[in-house]
């Protein structure tokens, strides 16, 4: 991992279209400004990881699950 030291007001670029600026540090938290093209999605890391894990778990279903689920919901409706 590349590690850089920056002060408030300083920043860095990733490629030529993503600009990260340290806005301020306050009580252990760091406010960061990000300028990026709108098609670049920016996620908080913990949110991204949660969705990634859920997607991975979602691929582990089986045809039997689908059949049982469809049958069970069908019974409830009728």
């Amino acid at each position: 991992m590349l590690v850089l030291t920056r002060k408030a007001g300083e920043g860095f670029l990733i490629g030529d279209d993503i600009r990260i600026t340290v806005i301020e540090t306050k009580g252990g938290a760091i406010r960061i400004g990000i300028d990026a093209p709108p098609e670049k999605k920016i996620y908080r890391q913990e949110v991204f990881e949660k969705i990634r894990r859920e997607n991975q778990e979602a691929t582990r279903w089986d045809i039997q699950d689908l059949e049982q689920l469809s049958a069970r919901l069908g019974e409830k409706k009728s």
Partner: protein
Amino acid sequence: MTATIRTRFGEVEYDPRNTLRFVEGPIGFGELRDFLVMPNHGGGPFFWIQSTEDTAVAFLLTDPTGFFPDYRVAPDAGERRRLGLEDGDVCHVLAVVTVRPERQVSLNLAAPVLYAPEKGRALQVVLENSPYSTRQPLPGSE
């Protein structure tokens, strides 16, 4: 012209022109773009999509409003552009279904899949700061 892939559910023949294309792969599966939409199974509210690039990857999807009638998600301007949506085009909102080993079923309402049928394009979006859960239990599935 058809192509055939061997999935974990058996062999599937498909027309490569009729695939669903994720403009950006599902989250955590960024390299997977093309999926087949598999026919509705057993008349239930669920269907599934199968990756043509990784035969082990398939997602169960459903229309969440069938279970949560108040659930509303609209694509923002950037998402509309990426999906190629034009004025008047329909945009479906779908939820990824998770079936856990104990057969508990949940919908991921925090990261729905937007689907533009006219363009055959899809995109999974994250609803940050929303009240929706990644593991909303499916009503009636207990």
